């Protein structure tokens, strides 16, 4: 019995479609809440080659939504742990494990080896980077993003269709991660699964691809909305003429004389410039407290003011720091607004 029998029975697949799947190469950038479910279904369907790209390690707080990982994976590189579980699911699939972050310098050489890019990333810089590299290498990419109970889904750069810059020509400094806002595991589960469905449609060349269409989901309200995206040719031409246009989400802090302690994760944006900012993620604060000055006032901040309050309380209780002050309004309240 053919292991793919139950999908080959469909008119949309058939033996020809199964061959297309076997010859397809999909790169998953970010093996997290979105990438895990997408990978599970693409591997199950018999996609020939899957790239698993992630520079991060599995954390205990990932497990509620990153369904590939188990308790014993905590501390392991995500790309490698994912490959172990996925090869056990389907030994016919060829995997490439890439334990690097996507950068301006490696994007094109990695994308070259794949047909489709599936976006499982959690920040604007990488989404714009995927977009530009896909425009330059003429490949479609499957986009999803989540914020609390809402999700967005679309396919960009498919057969001359709109790109991400056609939807959002201007970015925002407000990059808010699941770590900072919270998310139910099912939301990226749903979006990642829908991304896998789009990938299968692209490979099989069947159905209506979500190109030029943004789908918006709200799982708490149970609503779904569709928005039509127009192509902005000037956005695409700018990439074709200038290459990748890196988005640097940097900001200046209002007071250059003041010491600051940033307790957010390293990927959170905007990133403050200057030598007056010490950066220690909240999870590392107990092991790295010696890096914090004790004799001068230090303002402690995060995205919203919640984690930084915990940091101030913790440092006072454990080590007696009395010179730390929480920034209640979060980073947006201490940024110099650009003219």
């Amino acid at each position, binding site marked *: 019995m053919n292991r793919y029998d139950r999908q080959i029975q469909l008119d949309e697949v058939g033996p020809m479609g199964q061959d297309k799947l076997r010859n397809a190469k999909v790169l998953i950038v970010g093996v997290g809440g979105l990438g895990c479910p997408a990978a599970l279904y693409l591997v199950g369907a018999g996609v020939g080659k899957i790239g698993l790209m992630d520079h991060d390690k599995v954390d205990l707080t990932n497990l509620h939504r990153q369904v590939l990982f188990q308790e014993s994976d905590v501390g392991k590189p995500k790309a490698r742990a994912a490959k172990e579980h996925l090869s056990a699911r389907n030994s016919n699939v060829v995997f490439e494990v890439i334990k690097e972050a996507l950068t301006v310098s490696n994007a094109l050489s990695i994308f070259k080896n794949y047909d489709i890019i599936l976006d499982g990333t959690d920040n604007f810089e990488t989404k714009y980077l995927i977009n530009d590299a896909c425009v330059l290498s003429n490949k479609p990419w499957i986009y999803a993003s989540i914020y609390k109970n*809402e999700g967005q889904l679309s396919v960009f750069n498919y057969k001359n269709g709109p790109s991400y810059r056609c*939807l959002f020509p201007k970015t*925002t400094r407000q990059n808010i*991660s699941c770590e900072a806002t919270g998310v139910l595991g099912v939301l990226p589960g749903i979006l990642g699964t829908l991304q896998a469905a789009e990938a299968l449609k692209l490979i099989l060349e069947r159905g209506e691809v979500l190109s030029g269409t943004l789908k918006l989901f709200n799982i708490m309200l149970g609503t779904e909305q569709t*928005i*039509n995206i127009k192509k902005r040719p000037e956005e695409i031409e700018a990439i074709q003429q200038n290459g990748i246009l890196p988005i640097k989400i940097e900001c200046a802090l209002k007071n250059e004389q003041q010491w600051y302690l940033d307790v957010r994760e390293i990927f959170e944006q905007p990133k403050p410039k200057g030598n007056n900012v010490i950066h220690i993620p909240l999870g590392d604060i107990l092991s790295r407290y010696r890096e914090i000055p004790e004799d001068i006032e230090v303002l402690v901040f995060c995205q919203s003011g919640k984690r930084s309050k915990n940091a101030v309380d913790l440092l006072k209780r454990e080590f007696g720091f009395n010179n730390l002050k929480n920034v209640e309004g979060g980073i947006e309240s201490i940024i110099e607004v650009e003219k």
Partner: protein
Amino acid sequence: MKVTIKYFGLVAEAAGKNEEVFNFEGTLTSGELKNKCLDQLSILDRDSVQVAVNQNLDDTIEIKEGDEVALLPPFAGG
């Protein structure tokens, strides 16, 4: 003129609701209506928020009675 405004992401959070009926006098383009709404919600980061009228992205179209306007901020969680 009465229109329905749908809020998403951070804009919905600032508004404390996902949808409301908005009343205004005179004529406004979709971009002007967007700025009016974002001003009321004290959202400074206007440029990244996109506006759709009757499911089509467009910030220059003149708003008509009964239009459905959506305010879409970008977000990047994953």
